[in-house]
């Protein structure tokens, strides 16, 4: 198997899908000639030409809505947000158009569009540029929300997202672009909506997604050193949520810590906690703990931002609390 960075895995997925299906186009700011602000689209202009790889003006609302219109007319656009922080400019198009047209037309339209791009905090770019927006989009009934943590999932899930006939928000995390791991060659199609156990354990379940999966894995190592066996579940897809996988692990460990980089209020972790207590109340031996980004706008200064981010130390402390 090839060892690829997350960025290369995403690039492969885009390239393979564009190769396979002429209806797939890619557009966004700096995706073509500049080769992508984070180089995810590197080489695609050269391979597929300016008809299919388009540099847009800085008009997120315009090109997102244009993408939805093109999808209504049968194309399968991949719309890149340089970062998801900038998707707020296009929120109306994503929520009211991509998110509602199938339903409010009585099922006449498919909207096979993928919105994708970088996201996340921790790199000291301040409040406007550090959003981890999966909750905002997961709150919209008809949107699929995918947040990969590893290169193989990034590739397999992006390919599945492009083939999905539903609007998908594919939320990458900037901190992971350089992360390397094995990726199967060729046509891997990872099922949307399935979590993955990234580490088996017996005493506490750490439930995470995206970059937080790596925080949870680091905490699992700390816990192991202290003689505690932690299981790490990478949700991979926030919506739909893989509730059976979550409940299965809880039945085994009876303890849960949820790790999420986003802000806590009505975060997906709150939904996961609700599902567990509602369906598996008797499996729980301790209150569910959550480690989230702190409920403040993202600060710039390193000392402040580090305090805001979920960390392995915070997760380990929370895990020990469930075992106390």
């Amino acid at each position, binding site marked *: 198997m090839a060892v690829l960075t997350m960025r290369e895995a995403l690039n492969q997925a885009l390239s393979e899908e564009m190769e396979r299906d002429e209806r797939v186009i890619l557009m966004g700011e700096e995706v073509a000639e500049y080769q992508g602000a984070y180089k995810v689209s590197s080489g695609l202009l050269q391979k597929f030409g300016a008809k299919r790889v388009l540099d847009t*003006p800085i008009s997120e609302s315009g090109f997102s809505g244009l993408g939805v219109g093109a999808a209504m007319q049968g194309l399968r656009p991949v719309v890149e947000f340089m970062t998801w922080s900038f998707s707020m400019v296009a929120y109306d198009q994503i929520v009211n158009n991509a998110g509602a047209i199938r339903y409010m037309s009585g099922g006449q339209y498919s909207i096979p569009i993928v919105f994708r791009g970088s996201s996340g905090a921790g790199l000291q770019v301040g409040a*406007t540029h550090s959003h981890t927006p999966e909750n905002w989009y997961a709150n919209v009934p008809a949107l699929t929300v995918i947040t990969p943590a590893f290169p193989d999932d990034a590739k397999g899930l992006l390919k599945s997202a492009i083939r999905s006939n539903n609007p998908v928000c594919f939320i990458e995390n900037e901190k992971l672009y350089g992360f390397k791991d094995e990726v199967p060659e060729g046509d891997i199609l990872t099922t949307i909506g399935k979590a993955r156990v990234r580490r088996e354990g017996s005493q506490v379940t750490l439930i995470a997604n995206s970059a937080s999966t790596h925080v949870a894995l680091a905490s699992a190592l700390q816990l192991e050193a202290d003689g505690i066996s932690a299981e790490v579940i990478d949700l991979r897809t926030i919506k739909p949520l893989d509730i059976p996988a979550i409940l299965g692990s809880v039945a085994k460990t009876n303890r849960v810590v949820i790790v999420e980089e986003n802000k806590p209020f009505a975060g997906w972790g709150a939904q996961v906690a609700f599902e567990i207590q509602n369906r598996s109340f008797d499996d729980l031996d301790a209150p569910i703990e959550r480690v989230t980004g702190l409920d403040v706008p993202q600060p710039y200064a390193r000392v402040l931002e580090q305090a805001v981010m979920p960390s392995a130390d915070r997760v380990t402390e929370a895990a020990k609390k469930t075992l106390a």
Partner: protein
Amino acid sequence: MASSGAKKVKSKEKPGKSPAVLPTLTPSERVDLLRKMVLIRRFEQKAAQAFMQAKIKGFCHLYIGQEALAVGSISTLNRTDAVITAYRDHGHALARGMTSRECMAELFGKITGCSRGKGGSMHFFNKEKHFHGGHGIVGGQTPLAAGIAFAQKYNGTGEVTVCYLGDGAVNQGAFHESLNLAALWKLPVIYVIENNEYAMGTHQSRSSAGYPLVKRADGYDMAGITANGNDVDDVREKMWDAVQLARTESLPSLVEVKTYRYRGHSMSDPGNYRTKEEIAERKKESEPISLFKERLFKEKALTEKQYEEIEKEAVAEAEDSIAFAESSPEPEVATVFEDIFAPEDQIAEFRPPIGS
């Protein structure tokens, strides 16, 4: 390129407000403009060094090459007029009279920074100096400017607002909505397009239809004015018309200023979309500091020796700002929970638990 509206400037003066004609500066006032431009240049160079040493993090967009624009335009304002801009904000902040120390300390993420270390390079603020940010989202500042101008008009203060944006930002819907509101409600706001030809790696010819960009004023029936951003005098002159229009008649304008940035889009941009020759060419023909310096020499407002002194002072000030930033304390971790809500409301007590 000044379209109809700009000529509507009338010479009526409100008592206690600025005079109707662009005041002629004394030689020493002209030298002060140069001093400010040189300071911005040296400040930015020090910031670039500090970024390379990882003392400044995140995104850092330099103003090198565009100094005459901020200095010239802000020099036409009164102290209480409002200034607002995008993320490339160091130059405007310094031109507005914010100190090198508070700016550099912000870049270093220190508690002594103009935003207490919370904003960083893209989010400078100083309300006392009527500098209303530093805005990271392209175009996001443009409706705010209309709102500030709305309040100025509402309060009848005779103040005006200047809002800067890039040639790339003109394609955001928010900007068009702002222009319409400003024209419809006759708001005392001046939108200044800093046309440095590139939005990141995208040349203006690949991002905008309809040239020159100032034409966008026509659709909203507002004054459209063009200036040469390499020439501080030209910027002052043209801005003056717009400022007067806003101040005396409460009318908005759109000013397109031609400029050029010498560095990458941000410190993280290798800049492969243009050639070194292109940059060298531009520097040779229209470097704003040399242009103005030579003019001052000719006017006998400045000697070679005095200029060296200005350079020395600017470097010393930039170095002092680095020393200040370096020796300033980090913010206390507890400050992370400060500045979220108005303290009078004591909202913190009702906040949900924040995870563990």
